[in-house]
């Protein structure tokens, strides 16, 4: 990452990191507007845009009607007409009505006009479970969108990455879907460098080095995978942990280098297994590093059910725990 102004840093949680970055973007560029449900006086339901409306006014902090298709669609028009909109979908579960505007419009605008029109747009949305959000406040949506050329997808796990990647997303000349795991919002705190910096999209982060197994994850599960890997370290097993950070583009080099070293790959994600991000990673590694593999690639992902239920046992069964991750790692190391 390139830190431009100072080497000092501030401890923040992920909510504060998103907020600080959005604030900077609003402050530094008056083309930036934020639109979404309850982003104004309420300051977003997670208080990410708290007080923005007081400083930047209702013209730039736009409380929209409950109409997700138009939240994204209007942002597309703003972007085509030279603003830098940051659209918010209140929960990722509500993004479906705007599916066409994201997949059919935003992602194709540059292409269909042969570059004459572009759509520099950020769509932020909190996703993920572990917060008792049940069927409509817990979903992971990344697999529905990562298939789409023209769109970029980011899913950071750490506050410093949130800032660097959100800055990069805002600067990006193309539409970016910025996924924020809501369980990490207040749970995860960390040092965030002061001043403006960006982290390039498509660069994974090697969080922990190891020799016997590569674990690839993103979002909340990165934290749990790291916890599990550290536990295994105490048992004398050496696991390498990679935080993807960007889902599209995805960092092939980091994954391949690691797999060629450890010869074993475990992919951990919260989204459903069938057709998930892990499927693409598995296919890529099978295509490019088959003769380095010393064990079948494994995926620890959500089961093939539509959602996590509200009742605690249903949520726990749906999600993978650090303990389950550790067990999968042990099995694979010993394989």
């Amino acid at each position, binding site marked *: 990452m390139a830190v431009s102004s100072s080497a000092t840093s501030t401890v923040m949680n992920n909510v504060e990191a998103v907020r600080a970055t959005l604030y900077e973007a609003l402050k530094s560029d008056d083309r930036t507007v934020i639109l979404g449900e309850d982003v104004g006086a309420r300051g977003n339901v997670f208080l990410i845009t708290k007080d923005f409306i007081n400083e930047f006014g209702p013209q730039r902090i736009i409380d*929209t*009607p409950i109409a997700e298709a138009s939240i994204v669609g209007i942002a597309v*028009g703003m972007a*085509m007409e*030279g603003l830098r909109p940051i659209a918010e979908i209140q929960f990722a579960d509500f993004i479906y009505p705007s599916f066409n505007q994201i997949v059919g419009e935003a992602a194709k605008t*540059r292409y269909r006009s042969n570059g004459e029109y572009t759509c520099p747009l950020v769509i932020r949305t909190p996703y993920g479970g572990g917060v008792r959000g049940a069927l409509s406040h817990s979903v992971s949506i990344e697999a529905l969108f990562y298939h789409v050329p023209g769109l970029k997808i980011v899913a950071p796990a750490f506050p410093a990455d949130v800032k660097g990647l959100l800055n990069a997303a805002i600067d990006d000349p193309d539409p970016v879907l910025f996924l924020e795991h809501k369980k990490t919002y207040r749970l995860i705190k960390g040092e965030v460098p002061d001043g403006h910096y960006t982290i390039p999209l498509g660069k994974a982060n090697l969080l922990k080095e190891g020799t016997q197994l590569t674990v690839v994850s993103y979002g909340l599960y990165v934290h749990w995978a790291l916890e599990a890997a550290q536990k295994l370290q105490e048992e004398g097993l050496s696991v390498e942990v990679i935080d993807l950070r960007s889902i599209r583009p995805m960092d*092939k080099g980091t994954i391949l280098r690691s797999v060629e070293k450890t010869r074993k790959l475990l992919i951990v994600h919260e989204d459903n297994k069938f057709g998930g991000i892990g499927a693409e990673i598995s296919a890529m590694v099978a295509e490019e590093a088959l003769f380095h593999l010393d064990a079948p690639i494994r995926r620890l992902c959500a089961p093939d059910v539509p959602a996590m239920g509200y009742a605690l046992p249903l949520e726990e069964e749906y999600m993978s725990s650090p303990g389950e991750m550790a067990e999968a790692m042990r099995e694979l190391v010993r394989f």
Partner: protein
Amino acid sequence: MTTTMAKTDIKTGKLERYGLTDDKLRALLRNMLLQRQLDNRGFQLNRQGKVPFALGSEGHEALQAGAAMAFERGKDILAPYYRDLGLCLGIGLSPYEILLSIFARAADHNGGRQFPNHYSSKQAGLMSFSSILAAHIPHAVGAAYAIKYRGEQGRAVLVTSGDGTTSEGEWHESMNFAAIHELPMVMLVENNEWAISTPLDKQMAQPEIWKRAAGYGMPGRRFNGFDPIETYGAVKEAMDRARSGGGPSIVEGTCYRYLAHSTDDNDMTYRTKEVVQERRKNDPVPRFEALLVEYGVMSERDVEAMRKDVLRETNDATDRAEAMPYPQPSDLYTHVYEGAWEPWQ
């Protein structure tokens, strides 16, 4: 059903021109003739096997010519839909550009990517759009928001749709948002009574679309879309209001779709020849020709000369466009993102 054409001033008994000069009236007719000629050319090329698809807007000529004249080039933005050939011509696209698009040549604005009739030109203020009904309307709202947010005076967005599009959720969401923020936007509905095979009474229980405007808290009005002058007056009034901070409105022009939906459609499966012939009596093109002759704006010979000129220009454009090269296979890979890009990095 027959509709009247050309309001006359009650006091003077003269043609109500809404300030249009003779030159402008002739320009209206030329646009209408060119639109019909180019529409026809698309169908001809399709039947010759030279292009895979064409889509006609016969019956919309008056409405589009009139609305285009209310558009201020270099200032306003047009967010059209796919049956707006006349509008796109009227705001400045040339027949050659139209034919490049029909032939999908490399020199087309979209590099031959888009379906015919999906024109765009940043320079002309013509927004890029897809075939998805109503998907462009929030974009128009966003553009109007940008204009208002930057405090730009004297600019507005003209967005169009057919009657069927008003059933889409995005149409509704867009109207609501534009009204809340009093955006400089005009929603022009070209009500041609047919959404492919779906007639108006299966599209909505309220056939007067402009009446929805009250539900959003904005003005609405209806006009005779077979009359290019009345259309100009209605759209100009709405655009002037939008440009001067008066907020959005819905203007509904009634017209008719004389042809099938596209070269891929056979309208005789859902409506009769007799009905279409009956509606042809109101065909705006010959009627507007007759009107201009009647009021002495043009002679019959002038009209004939204009027709020939339009045909010549169309033929020239066709030959020139057809001779242009296709895009390269490698052009498939450009403009996915800015710069070269691979999903695996």
